[in-house]
């Protein structure tokens, strides 16, 4: 048993160091003291002093900082949702997209691009708005449907319902792609996922969902532990399984829906970060969930940094990097652990 202090210290150190590097490094490198000056002047209205290029201020405060924070929030949302779903469904292949929520959010976003919808007073926020709306609608329909076909909502029924809805909504997306013309690049770019050029407003959009969804899940960590022994055992341990299950599914889906709405479908984070965290720090959900938040945030910040620096000033889709970096890291941890067990 590794001490809890160590787990959190190391995870936070990872998150903070990736954040600092990600804010400092980019197409234009800005030294950390200058960053502190810029943030000080923009947030606390301190005098900035001479020698700071206004372009650097724009780049750091308007573009890079919101980007890094958004990446962190999206990574955190996907990772904790994935950890909760894997625990609840007792299925190592579960990811936040398993209930079809991401497909739902994608249908909303892709339709917005395809039909060129713009709701007057929402303007450019029409897309995340409609995306979250269709994600929430999908959650409700999926849960309603799962409940309808199986009152006790067994794990298999939930997964099956999710898969059916995912493929149905996925085919709608494919249909739109097949029909699309000039917006094709926009649509594919969105589906590949990105946290670029979202700005502070998008940070504001996802934050409340992360707080609500995250708190709901963190309040259910003991129940997740109990349910990992099987639902019957959990029932005997005094857990209201059905109610908790609904609550956890809804909270996880809200997190996923909000994450997809602001950044598109970024794969791999929600699947692998919980596994990685579990392998490193143990399966206890009381610590697994908060540690997944921290690791997920750090991981997506890091991969986004790579996506915009590897071939700078060009950029790569972040979803490509998450799997490209994540898979080997995960494989290494699996092998290392196997060796340790063998001794």
């Amino acid at each position, binding site marked *: 048993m590794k001490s809890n202090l160590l787990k959190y210290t190391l995870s936070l150190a990872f998150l903070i160091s990736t954040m600092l590097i990600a804010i400092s490094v980019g197409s234009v490198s800005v030294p950390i003291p200058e960053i502190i000056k810029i943030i000080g002047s923009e947030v606390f209205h301190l005098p900035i002093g001479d020698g700071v290029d206004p372009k650097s201020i724009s*780049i750091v405060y308007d573009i890079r900082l919101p980007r890094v924070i958004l990446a962190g929030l999206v990574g955190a949302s996907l990772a904790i949702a994935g950890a909760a779903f894997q625990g609840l469904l007792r299925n190592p292949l579960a990811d936040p997209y398993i209930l079809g929520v991401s497909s739902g959010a994608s249908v909303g976003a892709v339709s917005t691009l395809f039909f060129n919808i713009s709701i007057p007073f929402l303007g450019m926020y029409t897309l995340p708005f409609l995306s979250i709306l269709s994600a929430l609608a999908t959650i409700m329909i999926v849960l309603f449907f799962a409940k309808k076909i199986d009152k006790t909502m067994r794990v298999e029924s939930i997964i099956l319902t999710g898969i059916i809805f995912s493929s149905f909504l996925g085919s709608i997306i494919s249909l739109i792609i097949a029909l699309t013309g000039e917006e094709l690049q926009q649509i594919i770019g969105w589906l590949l996922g990105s946290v670029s050029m979202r700005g502070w407003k998008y940070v504001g959009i996802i934050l409340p969902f992360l707080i609500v969804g995250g708190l709901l899940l963190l309040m259910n960590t003991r129940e997740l532990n109990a349910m990992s022994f099987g639902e019957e055992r959990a029932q005997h341990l005094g857990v209201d399984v059905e109610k908790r299950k609904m609550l956890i599914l809804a909270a996880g889906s809200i997190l996923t829906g909000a994450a997809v709405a602001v950044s598109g479908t970024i794969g791999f984070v929600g699947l692998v970060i919980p596994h990685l965290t579990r392998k490193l720090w143990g399966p206890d959900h009381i610590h697994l969930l908060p540690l997944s938040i921290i690791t997920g945030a750090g991981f997506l910040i890091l991969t986004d940094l790579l996506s915009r620096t590897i071939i700078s000033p060009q950029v790569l889709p972040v979803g490509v990097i998450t799997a490209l970096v994540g898979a080997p890291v995960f494989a290494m941890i699996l092998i290392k652990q196997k060796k340790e067990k063998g001794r």
Partner: protein
Amino acid sequence: MKKFLQVLLLALLAGFLIGCSNNDSADEGAPDENTTNEETASEDTDGEDSAYPLTITDAIDNEVTLEEEPERIVSLMPSNTEITFALDQGDKVVGVSDNDTYPEEVLDIDKVGGMEFNVEVIISLDPDVVLAHESLVASSQEALDQLEDADIEVFTVADATDVDTTYETIENIGQVVNAEEEAEQLVTDMQADFAELEEITSEVAEEDRQSVFFEISPSPEIYTAGQNTFLDELLQIIHADNAAGDQEGWVEMDPEAIIELNPEVIISTYGSYVEDPIGEVTSRDGFDTVDAVANERIYDVDSDTVSRPGPRLVDGAREIAEAVYPELFDEE
């Protein structure tokens, strides 16, 4: 299922990227080939008006034999259509691609498909020749083979990525549609128009040269045109600098890098499907320090005129020139 979708998307994207990069690499390799084709082609027909049966070698080294002057033409690429119309042979065009929009007459012509061609429709149109395109060979080889199996002559036009190659494709199409004189005239006119633009803009002093940043797609995935693109070449002709001139081909740019490049003019080409392209640029966080935004020098040009290797490239170049150096054109 999710996986399937992702794979599909990646495949699509890969196709898109490969498509783009293919164009670039084709460009590098193509000129020699094209010129040789051109030579062999013109040798056959030197002197007189195309004598039938006429054999022409196309961009993929296929020998295309026309028994007589083609009366029914199907064009699989908007640029082919535009060239054919510019050669006054538009009345012979009986089928065009879904992407065709110019000239207006094409809207009434039968459509034969966009990314994938409907071979049955093409055959039913009973064309004497199909004007295919080098860029379609990779994606639609099977469809083109089927056309040839149906004894339809398929002439593959080279994928031009610079103005000189465009002239060659015009001359090639001129041969196929039996309008060589018109083709020569068209090329001469285009050369004259480009020369005029170059002449007008040559007055720009070295220190007044503007740096221009092209945006092919809107935020957040801002694609731009680097070297070896029409847009880059058009800028060279009108004595302006490409802010992204260090890049190669079509690339997605980091927004931070655009701010750092600090272009004096931004020209977007997505006005046809984005409602307010200029507002799209000015409303971006952090872009207010960019000269082009601060000085309100953002323009949108018709993407077709600057991307289709056809007669309207001149119009595109002129539109860009007037946007970049309005003072030079006011005087006229």
